[in-house]
């Protein structure tokens, strides 16, 4: 015969369904026969029902739920750069598009320069050199060269006298340097100077940083490796010299330019 103390100790296991079959039957039989244990069962059942039906706790606030969903999603799937970009587009489309455009330019501009063939590089160089020559030739007064603007040039060019010496030939009456200035060509800061040659035959020399520009090796001819071209009625001569490309433009012919090239290459 099972004791009341044992039955009372087994009631939660009976609720749980974890009593063995014979033990469960024994407890149930006892509850039928024992008024005190049956009352205990009934009171506890009433209490459990009251707790289940009337006790409650607040649910998670919506803002907290949303924050947790976001946090857990981020923790579960660490966001890669692409997903971050997508998220940025979603949150701040204007700023993100500006950033994306800058990234594209950052890639495409060098790629574009790299992909251009040497001839394609030379053509804009030729055209812009001619434009600069025309612009300088039309100026009434010879342009001055501001000292402060000579920073991109080698050390020997930083002071006016040092600069003029290698490009001017005081003893030479044919090629007289009259002036110059810093200009912009192919998105680069360049030095542009102008020589007086024969009357109304000015020659413009452009000294251009050669980063990203190549002169086609197969087209460089003669001593000093000069690239010659005639374009829109102008005679062009271009060659490498250290980190620069030198570009001469004139409506004189090749014979007028060659002595100057010789002087410039040996100064």
């Amino acid at each position, binding site marked *: 015969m099972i004791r009341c103390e044992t039955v*009372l*100790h087994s009631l*939660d*296991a009976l609720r*749980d369904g*974890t009593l063995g079959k014979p033990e469960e039957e024994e407890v149930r039989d006892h509850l039928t026969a024992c008024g005190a244990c049956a*009352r205990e069962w*009934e*009171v*506890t059942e*009433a*209490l*459990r*029902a*009251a*707790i*289940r039906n*009337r*006790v*409650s*706790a*607040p*649910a*998670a606030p919506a803002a*907290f*739920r949303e924050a*947790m*969903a976001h*946090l*857990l*999603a981020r*923790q*579960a*799937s*660490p966001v890669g750069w692409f997903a971050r970009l997508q998220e940025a587009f979603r949150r701040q489309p204007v700023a993100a598009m500006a950033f994306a455009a800058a990234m594209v330019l950052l890639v495409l501009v060098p790629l574009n320069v790299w992909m251009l063939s040497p001839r394609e590089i030379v053509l804009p160089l030729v055209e812009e050199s001619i434009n600069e020559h025309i612009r300088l030739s039309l100026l009434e007064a010879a342009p001055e060269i501001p000292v402060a603007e000579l920073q991109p040039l080698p050390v020997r060019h930083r002071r006016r006298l040092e600069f003029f010496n290698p490009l001017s030939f005081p003893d030479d009456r044919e090629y007289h340097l009259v002036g110059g200035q810093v200009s912009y060509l192919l998105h680069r800061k360049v030095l542009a100077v102008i020589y007086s040659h024969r009357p109304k035959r000015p020659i413009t020399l452009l000294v251009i940083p050669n980063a990203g520009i190549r002169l086609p090796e197969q087209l460089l001819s003669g001593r000093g490796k000069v690239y010659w071209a005639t374009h829109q009625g102008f005679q062009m001569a271009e060659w490498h010299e250290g980190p620069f490309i030198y570009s001469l433009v004139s409506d004189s012919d090749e014979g007028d330019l060659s002595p100057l090239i010789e002087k410039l290459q040996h100064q």
Partner: protein
Amino acid sequence: MDRVSLSEEEKDRFAKALLQHLDALYGFAWWLTHRREEIEDLVQETCLRALRSAHQFEPGTNLKAWLFSILKHEWFRRAGLAQREVLADSFSDNPEVPGQEWAVEVDVIRTALQKDLDEALRALPEEYRSAVLLFDLYGFSLKETAEILAIPDGTVKSRLARGRQMLRGRLWAYSKVSDNDQM
């Protein structure tokens, strides 16, 4: 799922499963502390710990019970409480229900107001309250309750018995105060 780590897809699924138990976790934390910041902090830490340890969870077992055990452990850690055995007779200041009035008592319990039930539960020592809430309110099994509280099954049974006894005493006392107020 005792693996070194889960794939992103598995973790994502696990995170979604966690969210299904957010209300229950929040409610249980509310019973442990009424301070909202503390509740949210406790639940958040519980979820993050669970996600980090997701590979240790055994599929097919009760995820909710596993989460509750993490929350309870975290609460003990924060509160600086040691998991301790509570002697059943260490609280003797609770009113007892006279044995011969059991039928009236059932009536008292069945008609008890929600606020009285809340107050009676809130007044219970934490160890008893947790056992009663987990088994009677949240419906965990004895074994799960024992695992959540990190105590033996037998201790759960004695805490349940003692906790309910105290609850009954308080509800009985509330009903007597209410009767006196009406007279």
